């Protein structure tokens, strides 16, 4: 009785595939612009094959059992690729959920069952397909989250502008509340820019930062230390009295770091250090 899911998947394989294709193609969620009928047929056929093998075991419940591994792997690849291509969650899940009706039809057509057995089969198949559908949706969400995370990282990089304000002098004005991630990205970008521009001095300006906590302060100090190891120096400018107080309370040791009250002062200092006495460029040069 319970083996009939396995049976129909073998005995009515082609009919199930046809009916399933028909369901998918006529569905509102079919994206003919993104996937061709031929490709969809190949994918559907592949799913039928791995599912068919999995159910031979008699397990219709635990989709994380070893026999279902190929099924899950296939759904994973499918779901990730759909997500990347721009399918919506429901468009992606339709693949699995639209599989129900063809299976139920196949049970009916196999004919030689008592009503109780028939209902049991439908119920088991229903649960199984729901589980597989949910799995597909979870994977879809995960891969979307990865995409979003990557996009966020890219945006973070763009939003932390490191400027070359003079030959060999960089400035990184940090603005707003700093969290650990943003500060890390900003600092890595600064160090990378130091290499690319061969700048020996970087001014990190925190005028626009309302509060600095221990984590952020440590990031700053580590960046200063890393820059020194690379052969460049940092000046931290724009430390307001409140921030200075906080740093002392947090026992953050700034004795090894040059600090200036304003960005302008920091620049003046930087220019003096690099041997240029004035801020205005000599037009003759």
């Amino acid at each position, binding site marked *: 009785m319970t083996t009939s899911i396995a049976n129909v998947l073998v005995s009515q394989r082609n009919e199930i595939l046809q009916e399933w294709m028909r369901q998918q193609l006529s569905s509102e969620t079919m994206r003919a612009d993104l996937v061709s009928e031929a490709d969809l047929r190949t994918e559907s056929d592949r799913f039928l094959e791995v599912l068919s093998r999995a159910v031979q075991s008699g397990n219709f419940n635990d989709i994380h059992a070893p026999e279902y591994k190929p099924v899950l792997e296939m759904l994973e690849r499918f779901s990730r690729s759909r997500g990347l291509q721009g399918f919506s969650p429901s468009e992606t899940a339709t693949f699995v959920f639209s599989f129900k009706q063809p299976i139920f039809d196949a049970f009916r057509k196999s004919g030689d069952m008592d009503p109780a057995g028939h209902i049991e089969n439908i119920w088991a198949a229903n649960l199984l397909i729901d589980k597989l559908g949910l799995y597909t949706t979870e994977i879809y969400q*995960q*891969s979307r*989250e*990865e995409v979003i995370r990557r996009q966020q990282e890219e945006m973070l990089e763009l939003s932390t502008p490191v400027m070359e304000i003079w030959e060999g002098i960089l400035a990184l004005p940090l603005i707003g509340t700093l969290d650990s991630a943003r500060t890390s990205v900003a600092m*890595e970008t600064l160090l990378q820019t130091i290499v690319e521009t061969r700048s020996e001095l970087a001014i990190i300006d925190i005028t626009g930062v309302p509060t600095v906590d221990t984590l952020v302060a440590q990031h700053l100090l580590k960046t200063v230390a890393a820059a020194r190891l690379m052969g460049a120096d940092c000046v931290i400018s724009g430390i307001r009295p409140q921030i200075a107080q906080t740093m002392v309370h947090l026992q953050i040791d700034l004795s090894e770091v040059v600090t200036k009250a304003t960005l302008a002062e920091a620049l003046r200092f930087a220019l003096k250090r690099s041997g240029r006495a004035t801020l205005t460029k000599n037009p003759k040069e």
Partner: protein
Amino acid sequence: MSDFEIIPVVESKDIVAVRHAVRQQAVKIKFSLVDQTKIVTAASELARNMFVYAGGGEVTLEVLQEDARHGLRARFVDKGPGIANIDLALRDGFTTGRGLGLGLGGAKRLVNEFSIESTPGKGTRVTITRWR
């Protein structure tokens, strides 16, 4: 779904082999350059410890995937003299040998998860994990 790679550490050149193996895996998992460098450096420290203090041992690399997270786990197992006082060893600057220090504290800072088990006379096992 795990991949395992085992690298024996028998001579000092094997420390470089460990670095390369960890680097390869970290690149495959698509760690950022900084994260790659951190775990490769940590692995180098721990592999060297194993070689210097225990005469060698075995490094096992495991690629991890938990939900959406990808990670790399490295286990350093030796049958050396073991560490009597782990807390002391984790403190920076602690040395038992020729002024080299165990570097455990440093390696710990470079990874997300760090665990160490050691039995004097039997051996030591250090496990580090870095998540993407």
